[in-house]
């Protein structure tokens, strides 16, 4: 481990706010890229099921 303490890790000699904000934005964006298709799939399955039921009726 390069840093001696958690606060040193957070501060990174003054570069902490840059590094952590870059990683934070990246994490949020990547998570959004996974959540979006998962939610769309849920919605689609619901819609398709309703669509097929209507066809049968």
């Amino acid at each position, binding site marked *: 481990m*390069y840093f001696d303490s958690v606060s040193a890790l957070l501060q990174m000699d003054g*570069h902490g706010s840059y590094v952590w904000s870059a990683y934070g934005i990246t994490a949020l964006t990547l998570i959004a890229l996974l959540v979006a298709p998962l939610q769309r799939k849920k919605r689609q399955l619901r819609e398709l099921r309703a669509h097929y039921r209507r066809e049968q009726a």
Partner: protein
Amino acid sequence: MWAWFHKWSSPRWFYQLSGRLLPWLAVISAVCLLVGVAWGLLYVPPDYKQGNSFRIIYIHVPAAAVAMAGYMMMAIAGAISLVWRIKLADMVVKCAAPIGAALTFLALVTGAIWGKPTWGTWWVWDARITSVLVLFFLYIGIIALYEAFENKEAAGRACAILALVGAVNIPIIYWSVEWWYSLHQPASISFTGESSIHPSMLRPLMLTITGFYAFFGVALLMFVRNEILDRERNTRWVRELVTAAAR
């Protein structure tokens, strides 16, 4: 060869195969990203000139690399969709655009955040940065163009053409740091000669690059699979799949 090509382009076959592939890709991506990021943030010593800000490299370079490679893949899918009228290729073009746009956005934003402590500025109209901004607008343009058409077949063709034309931008991005050398540094990783980055910094970078490529694969497969369900809704196999999942 042709049988292989046809099989691959069948949405049903692709749906089944991608479903089996997806968990593996997801595991590879998660492991590479988590290990690479932890290594890069916690264990690698800081750069002697840039200090700790250089740690942004572990997300900036992979995001930019995959944004460019993703564009090339999208342009090739566009060519396949134009020449052979393959539905699956058309879906890939449509689905790759938002993922590529998000990764290009990340490359630009992490680059700006890195630029502030390193160059003293968030933004500069350097050739590399400007051409990546053009890449971002190309991705956004493809999304907007697709939405602009009522007829989805015409939309697919227009997007494929735009993707192909925009591909000229990729070599421009790639060599921009050599042709118009200004603030952005040239490549540190070389496949033919010796890399100018220290191995201790390079190893975690290789991991996060692999992780981002695998992530792109995961996201693309998820988007394309949804698109397949939507467009093939009137086929028997999708009906059976959906009704079986309900039980």
